[in-house]
């Protein structure tokens, strides 16, 4: 996983004989542009990740886009209130495929310690989440770990994965029941 994140170094095959899938996913994972979606304290850590010490530019993702049309990745950084939920979903809907979601921090992932009526208990109730970053807030390292995890997922190249019947991306398990 670690080598895969470093540009061409991640390539196992000869460039010319590589499968198209690999090329596409290599291209994709090295230019994941995040949409700005800082909601709370996690956003401070997200900003820190972009700064010099951690430098997200190493992953080709230094450009936080204000327009969802230009973004591939939504980092939901912070607790999502019930009022923010439709806004978040709209931004997500406006993003172009392929698109990914990192749920940053426990509040976005599960509501965290805000187990109450005001906070969405997990942003995966609204949008399909690819990677969850634990922590309150997650430091830049945890965020970068989740980005590396996401790179791994993109590298696996299942382009149409989101449409899988298992609902894998959203972590939603579909079960059939007799009634």
């Amino acid at each position, binding site marked *: 996983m670690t080598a895969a994140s470093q540009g061409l170094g991640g390539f196992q095959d000869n460039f010319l004989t590589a499968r198209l899938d690999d090329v596409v996913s290599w291209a994709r994972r090295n230019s994941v542009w995040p949409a700005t979606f800082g909601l709370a304290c996690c956003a401070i850590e997200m900003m820190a990740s972009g700064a010099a010490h951690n430098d997200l530019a190493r992953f080709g993702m230094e450009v936080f886009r204000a327009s969802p049309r230009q973004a591939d990745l939504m980092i939901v950084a912070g607790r999502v209130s019930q009022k923010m939920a439709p806004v978040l979903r709209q931004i997500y809907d406006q993003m172009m495929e392929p698109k990914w979601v990192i749920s940053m921090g426990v509040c976005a992932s599960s509501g965290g310690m805000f187990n109450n009526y005001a906070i969405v208990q997990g942003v995966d109730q609204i949008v399909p989440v690819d990677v969850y970053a634990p922590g309150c807030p997650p430091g830049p*390292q945890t965020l970068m770990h*989740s980005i590396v995890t996401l790179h791994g997922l993109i590298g696996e190249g299942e382009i149409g994965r989101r449409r899988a019947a298992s609902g894998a991306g959203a972590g939603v398990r579909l079960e059939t029941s007799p009634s």
Partner: protein
Amino acid sequence: MGYFEGFRITFKEMFKPRVTTSYPEELRPKPERAHGRHVLNRHEDGMEKCIGCELCAGVCPARCIYVRGADNPTDAPISPGERYGFVYEINYLRCIHCDLCVEACPTEAITESKLFEFSFTNRADAIYTKRELLVGDDGRPQRLPWELWSDDDEANTSAWVRATASSGRADYEGRVGWSAELGYGIRAPEVGQAGEDAVATADDRHGHGDDVGHGHGGGH
């Protein structure tokens, strides 16, 4: 020369040392008191320290800990005493690493390492069970395949322990200190901490001071 004036900073910075760490190959040292994922400790004889008392679950502000106790099997006891932690689960998508569980633990069974480089692709994966949390036979935390450990993460992992009065009197000062270490012994007391005494007192309160191993080289 206004044109070059603008590049002055750029050129100056060129000769300064680079501050960027190339994560994930290179990990930055963590602060002394960083809180990370938990570990469940064992006594030196391999018995689990957790007695399933659920105090950690009770104190947890995020309600991320689920514990169930059970009768300790007398023929093959899992922990000293009549009760042991039968189920122990922590949901890392709720845990805020506040360390209150560590403070509440009467047997110093739960402590926190500094590891926080982990992420999940599925909410179910984020629920660590006893199998993941328990330390190995050497007293060191398990390095799970999806976690990015550095040796630094295991060091200096003592918990902050503040002895309280049994009467609960608010004005009781208590003695504060570090709890037992994960594998490395006891941290030196900081300013205002009573140090070794506090740790020893914490053990004696629970009546089995001999059983409580302080990793290597406990403080009593």
